[in-house]
C-alpha cells in the first residue's frame, strides 16, 4: 500500500496488546452453562435495543442504534444528482459505504477501508435495495453511510437496521423496512444476537465439528428474505432452524422499530 501521505506519519509496525493474550481459557468455556448465556440471557433473548432518529443535523435522514454495546450511526444523503454517470437507467441508484471506526474493534482497524469493509458495503447494498422504490427518483442517487462506533457482536446486522431506520427518517419511499438478526450455532444449541465473545471466529479451536453463524435480513410485511449470509460448517437442517429463529428475532426487532418511528412522527407532527 503506498504510504498514506494525507495523514501524519505513523510507525510502520505496531502490535495491538490484546493479540498477545494467551488466555485461550476464555474461549474454552461453553457458550451456554445451565441454559444461561455468559451475560445470563436466554438463548432466544435479544439484547436491549435503543434507537434514535434525526441525530445528524446535516443529513436528510440519520439514525443511531445501540444493540447491547454495539453502537452504529448512519446517515442518508440524497436523492441527489450524480456527477459522472456511465449508463442511463430509469431507476435511481443506491450506493452504500460501510466502515468500522478505527477504535471500534479490539484490533485497531485502518483508516482506508479494507477488503472486508468493501465486501460488507456491497452486501449492505444487496440487503437494502429490494426494499427501496428506486423508480421514484430516476437519474438520481441516494447515498447511505454507516459507521460502527463500537463492535460488540453482530455489528453488520445492527448496521442494516440502522440504515433502514435512516432511510425512513430521510422519508425515502420504501416497500418495507428491512430488519436483520444474527444466530450463532455452536454444535449444541442456537443462540440469537451473539455478543463479540460469543461470535463465530475461525481462530478458536472448534468445540464440535459443526458450528457457524447465520445472518438474515427480513422484510416483515412482504415476508421475504432480502439478505442471507452464513459462515461456518452447518448441515441444512440446522440452517433451516437458524433461519426460522432469525426471522422470529427480526419480527421482535420490527415492533421495537415501529414504536420508535411512531414516536418520531408524533413529535414532528405536533
Amino acid at each position, binding site marked *: 500500500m503506498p504510504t498514506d501521505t494525507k495523514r*501524519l506519519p505513523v510507525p510502520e509496525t505496531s502490535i495491538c*496488546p490484546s493479540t498477545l493474550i494467551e488466555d485461550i481459557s476464555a474461549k474454552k468455556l461453553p457458550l451456554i452453562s445451565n441454559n444461561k448465556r455468559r451475560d445470563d440471557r436466554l438463548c432466544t433473548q435479544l439484547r436491549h435495543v435503543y434507537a434514535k432518529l434525526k*441525530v445528524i*443535523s*446535516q443529513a436528510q435522514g440519520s439514525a443511531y442504534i445501540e444493540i447491547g454495546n454495539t453502537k452504529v450511526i448512519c446517515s442518508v444523503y440524497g436523492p441527489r444528482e450524480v456527477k459522472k454517470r456511465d449508463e442511463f437507467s430509469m431507476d435511481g441508484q443506491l450506493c452504500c459505504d460501510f466502515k468500522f471506526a*478505527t477504535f471500534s474493534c479490539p484490533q485497531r482497524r485502518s483508516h482506508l477501508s479494507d477488503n472486508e469493509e468493501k465486501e460488507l458495503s456491497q452486501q449492505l447494498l444487496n440487503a437494502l435495495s429490494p426494499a427501496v422504490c428506486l423508480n421514484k427518483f430516476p437519474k438520481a442517487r441516494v447515498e447511505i*453511510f454507516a*459507521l460502527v462506533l463500537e463492535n*460488540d457482536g453482530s455489528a453488520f446486522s445492527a448496521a442494516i437496521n440502522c440504515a433502514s431506520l435512516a432511510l425512513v427518517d430521510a422519508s425515502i419511499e420504501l416497500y418495507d423496512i428491512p430488519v436483520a438478526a444474527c444466530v450463532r450455532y455452536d454444535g449444541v444449541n442456537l443462540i440469537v444476537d451473539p455478543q463479540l465473545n460469543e461470535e463465530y471466529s475461525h481462530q478458536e479451536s472448534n468445540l464440535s465439528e459443526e458450528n457457524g453463524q447465520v445472518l438474515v435480513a427480513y422484510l416483515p410485511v412482504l415476508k421475504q428474505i432480502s439478505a442471507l449470509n452464513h459462515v461456518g460448517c452447518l448441515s441444512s437442517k440446522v440452517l433451516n432452524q437458524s433461519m426460522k429463529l432469525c426471522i422470529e428475532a427480526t419480527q421482535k426487532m420490527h415492533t421495537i422499530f415501529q414504536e420508535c418511528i411512531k414516536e418520531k412522527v408524533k413529535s414532528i407532527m405536533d
Partner: protein
Amino acid sequence: MESADQFKAVQPLQYYKRFLDQNIRPDGRRLQEARTTTVNVNFCTHANGSAMVRIGNTTVCCGVKAEITTPSVTQPNDGIIVPNVDLPPLCSSAIQSGPPTDYAQTSTKLIDDILVSSNLIEKKDLCIVPSKYVWVLYCDIVCLDLDGNLIDASLLIKLPVVSVNEKTGKLEYDHAKTTSLTLRDEPIATTFAAFDSDAIIMDPTLEEENLCNGSFTITLNKEDDICSLFKPGGTELDNQKLQNCLKHCKRRVNSVRSLMQNAVSS
C-alpha cells in the same frame, strides 16, 4: 415562504448584520454566548479511552487506542502520539468519500501542534522498555455532524483517561492491571468569528462560519496561559480587541472545565 426566510436566502449577510446590530443572533444566543455543550466519556469499551462531545449540533467522538512499537532512533525513550481528525462523508453533504479533505488535514496538524505545545501527555511516561518497546497512542477523532467549530469539539476530547497496561520482561501483557495516564494539562479552545472589526461572535455555527470573513481560535491551558493562538487571515484586530477576546475566552474555559470535571468523575 415568509418574507424573513426569503430575505435570509437572498441577502444572508445583511440578514445577519440586522441581528448583530441588536447584539443578538438568529438562534437567540448573545454574541459572546456558546452553544450548549455536553460531554460523555468512555462510551466505547474496546478503545483504551474514548469520549463524545456535542457543542450545539456539532458532534465529535474520539477513540484512543494504545499499541506497542519500537521507538524512533532519535528519541529512544519517547512515546509517540498520532492524532488524526477524520471527516467521513457521513458528517456533511459537502464531503465525498475519498482521501481526507484539506480542512481535515489542517485540523489534524493544528491539534498535533496544540498537543505538542501544551505537552498534554509527557512522552517519557509512554516508555515501556527504553529504546526497545514504547507505547504509541492513536487518537482518532471522528466528526459525526459538522456544524461549525470543529476545533473546540475535537480539543475537548483530547482528555479521555487512557488506561495503559503493565508489562514485564519480554512482551507479555496482563489484561487485568491497567494504570491510567496522568494528564499534565487540559487545553481548552474557544473559537471566535469576526464579521467586521467590532462584531465578534463566539462559537460560530457552520452558517456563521461561512458568512463571516475570518475566524480565530484561542486555546488556554490550566493556568489560563495561551497555548495556541490560531488566526488565519480575516479582519485585522488590534491588541485591545485581542485582550477582550481573551477575557471572554477565560469565562468560557472555566465553565467548560467544570463540565469536564463532572463528566470524567461520573
